[in-house]
Structures are given as C-alpha cells and as structure tokens.
C-alpha cells in the first residue's frame, strides 16, 4: 500500500439543477496519509460540503452525479454498491456535521444514539453497548448527572451536543473522520474545547481527518495539509506552513489577509 488512506482523483460532483447541471466540485485531487489532517478551506458555496458528502456516499444520486475516483484503503468508494458502502462507513469513516443539535435525533435519548452507533458498528450489543456508550460519553466530558438531567438533545447546549456527536462518530474508532465545519455554530470557548477534544482523540487513535471550514486561522492550527477551494476548484494545495507563508494563488493571499485583519479587529469568531 502507498501509505495513503485516501486517494482522490478527478473528483467531480454535479447537481442536476432546474436550469441545467451545476458543477459543485470540479476535478479535485488530493491524498491523505493515515493519521494526518487535511484542511479544506473556502467560502460558502465553494463546494466543501459536497466533497465530504460525496466521499461518505451520502449524496442522493437522484440529484447529484459523482465521477472520478476516491480510493479508501485502496478500495474504490464511488462506485461501491450501497450495501458494501454501508459496511465501509460503519467501520472506516465517521462524519461530524455542522449543526450539532440537528445531527441528533430529537425523539431518542442521546445516550441511546451513542449506543446505537456502537451496536451498528458491531463493537458490542445490547446492555454492553449501553455501558460502552456511557464510557464514550464520559470520555468526551458528558457525565452521568448530565445524562440524567438532560437525556435529550434539545436539553443540551450546542457544545454538549457536539461532544455527543463526537462520541457517536468516534465510537467505532474509524480510520477517517470527515468534519464538516464542526465548530462554526459554537462560540469561541466551546470551539476551542471541541477542537482540543477532537485533536486529542485523533492523536490517541491515529485517525486521519478531513477538516472542512471557512475559518483559515482555525484550520491553520490543526491541519498539516491545506486545500483551498474556490467555486468548486482547488486553487491551491500543499503543506499548511508553505501555503500560509508563500501562497501561490492570489485568492489564498486574500484569504490570509482577510483572516489576519479579521483577528486584529477582534472578530475572528468564524461567523463572518
């Protein structure tokens, strides 16, 4: 094997719009080493989320065409039948969504959802899965009193919901985590806590991560590789340090400039 957990080539996502096809992602190429982090940066509508959904096989093929190649652990993901894809997702790929509250089922106790994740990934069943879920939740800082007082997602804060989501997504120790703006709905303090929690888990379990965000400074702090997207295309990619110090593309330079100015004015909270 090449040492790359994920190899993406010529990935193109096209949505079938009412007024003809809309290209959300065009001809994307990147590789991800196991245990490393890739940051995907770009403004809204740049196609960042489509990449994550395409890789996880979550795009509805009724409305979207996906072409190109994405090999996960040497296995082609994009033309995998739904049944096999379910197996790959369950054991190999985890995903964090942008809105932590919406990513949890409002009619199911959050602990049950973590237990569901554990039993679906075949780690443990029944009571044992529940016990494990309790440990996983304690591990992300959601303790028993919290679960007794607030068993449902709407009773938890956004930050707590994001922790629950992390517990559910990482319960099976996936090799790859796709995090789609996991902190942009949180305030600065919570954002920092969640990032620290995430990074600790990544290091401990040698997990690779694709971190999608519009916040360049945030990504700069955690990613080794950087991919800058604009209008569905990668305008620049490379090691994070190189891209930040010597941007080859004028758009990247603009983003860096905007990020620095933003932080100087004290509103780099990522909500801009």
């Amino acid at each position, binding site marked *: 094997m090449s040492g790359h957990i994920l190899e993406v080539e010529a990935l193109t996502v096209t949505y079938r719009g009412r007024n003809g096809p809309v290209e959300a992602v065009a001809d994307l190429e990147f590789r991800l080493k196991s245990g490393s982090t890739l940051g995907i940066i770009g403004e809204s509508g740049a196609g960042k989320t489509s990449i994550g959904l395409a890789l*996880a096989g*979550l795009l509805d093929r*009724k409305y979207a065409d996906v072409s190109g190649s994405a090999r996960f652990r040497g296995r082609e993901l994009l033309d995998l039948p739904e049944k096999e894809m*379910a*197996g790959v*997702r*369950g*054991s190999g*790929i*985890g*995903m964090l*969504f*942008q*809105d932590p509250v*919406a*990513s*949890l*089922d*409002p*009619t*199911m*106790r959050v*602990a049950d*959802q973590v237990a*569901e*994740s554990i039993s*679906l*990934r075949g780690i443990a069943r029944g*009571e044992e899965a*529940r*016990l494990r879920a*309790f*440990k996983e939740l*304690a591990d992300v800082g959601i303790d*028993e009193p919290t*679960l*007794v*007082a*607030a*068993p*449902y997602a*709407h*009773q*938890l*804060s956004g930050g707590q919901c994001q922790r629950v*989501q992390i517990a*559910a*997504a990482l319960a*099976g120790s996936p090799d790859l985590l796709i995090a789609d703006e996991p902190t942009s709905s949180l305030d600065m303090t919570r954002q920092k806590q969640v990032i620290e929690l995430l990074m600790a888990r990544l290091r401990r379990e040698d997990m690779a991560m694709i971190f999608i965000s519009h916040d360049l400074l945030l990504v700069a702090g955690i990613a080794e590789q950087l991919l800058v997207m604009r209008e569905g295309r990668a305008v620049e990619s490379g090691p994070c340090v190189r891209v930040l110090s010597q941007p080859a593309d004028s758009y990247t330079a603009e983003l860096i400039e905007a990020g620095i100015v933003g932080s100087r004015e004290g509103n780099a909270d990522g909500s801009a």
Partner: protein
Amino acid sequence: MASPTQLPAAWGPASGPELSDAGIWSRLKGNGTAVLALVLLLLIGVTSLLVPLLPLDDPLETDYENTLQAPGPEHLLGTDAHGRDELSRVLWASRTSLMVGVLATAIALVTGIAVGGLAGYGGRFIDPLLMRITDIFLSFPVILGAIAILAVAGPGRRNVFLAIALFGWPIFARVFRSSVLSVRERDYVKAARLMGASETRIFMTHILPNASAPLVTYTTMAVAAAILAEAGLSFIGLGVQIPYPSWGLMLAESMVLFDRAPWLVMAPGLAVTLTALVFILLGAVATRAMDPRKSGGGGSRR
C-alpha cells in the same frame, strides 16, 4: 473517572422512542383545555365500555303504553315513539359511534402510514405512482365516497366503517409523506446511515418517530370526522339499521317529533356534538403536549 459496574440511572428501563415520557404529563398540568378534554374522553370511553353492565333498560324493548314520555325519574331522558328508554339508546349508540370512529381511523392511519412512508422513502418511481392514486381518492369527499360504496355494498355498520376508512387514508398518506420527505434529509438520518444502519432500521428508529408527530392531530380530527360521518350516514339510512340505536338514526327518527318531544332530538344531537368536540380538542392538546421542545422542565439550558 468512575468505571460503572451497573447501568447508570440515565438509562432507565430499555424502551422505544420516548413519547410516553413523564414530561408529557407535566406539560399537560395547568392546561385547562387539556384536562377538560381528557376527563371528557375518559368519561365517554369508560361509559361506553361499561354500558352492558349498567342498570339500563333494554334499548330495543318497546312499551306502547308509555310512548313519548318526558324526562323524569322513571326514564331519565324520557322515551321515544316506541316507548324505548332514550338514555339506554343514547348510551348504547355511543358504542357504535366510538367503534366506527376509532376502527375506521385506525385502518385509515395504518394504510396512510404505509402508503405515505413507501412514497416518501421509496424512490422516484413509486412516489408519483402512489401519490396519483392518493389524489384520486382525495378528490372524493369522504361522505360522498362512502355513500357510493354503501349504495353498492349495502348499508350496515361494518360497511360504514370500511367505507369511511377507504376514503379516510389519503390525508394520512399525504401528510406522512411530506413529513418523511423532510425528516429523511435531516443530519441525524445521514449520521445513522454513516454508522452503517440499514434503510429499514433508519426508517423504523429515526424516521417513523420523528415524522409521525403531525399525524397525531390529524388522527384525532379523523376520529371526530368519522363519528360525524357515521351519524350522517345513519341519518340518511345507509348506516345502522332500525331497530338498533345510532345517534344519526335516532335523530332521523325523532326529527318529525321535535314539537312534541324535543328531548329525543337533543339527547343524540348533544351526544354526537360533544363526542366530536372532545376529539377535536384532544388534537389541539396532543399537538402541544407531544412537542418536546416546548418542555419547561428536565434541566433545559436554553
């Protein structure tokens, strides 16, 4: 970090999606309408269940010596043109009304969930097909469709509730389908799919509980509508047949006697109005009570 040797209290007993949560009751308290609706429903339900055990006259026994008696100690609601005890007939008729209302709605609900779920979750070929069939049924007013069916199949209690169910399911199918379409795009459904959950499992554990909330209101409304439809069909002679008691039939029989015995019109008339009203009230109450986001208690931090 303490390692637990037994399940923490947070788990409670293993059970399905929690709507039977104690939270619902706490939300109902202090809501006058809710308490009224529930008390009335309980009263109507228990009474109609206990009718065979109550010390009532035989609702079919005629007594031509004592016809059209006014309400009094002998007959609390008087007697009808054949000397039958009106109270007994009104109470026995409640069994017919509730049974037709609840059974017809149950059949319509299950059919509607099946059709709507299949359409909303099934895919691009089955959805338009099922929805066009739904549209065809939806284009008949329930009462008109039921009259057509009864004209062909013949009158009677069983045919009445089958006819009401046959034209009652499309609204459930429509509502449930649109609800499924919205719920299936939620992030938690994607998350479940990411965990490797099968489509059946996703549907049963995540989509069904989340998509069925709007059905509650429609269900109670449908019970009210079915009770009214049964009364209407019996009134025009297509439902329950003489001599058996039904509110609609009793109204039809006593209408011409309104001058001489107004209680014979008022008793079944009030009974059907009150029963329908209770179910409509219940719909409004249930909609509010079932929404967990309106909860005040439970350690909410928002």
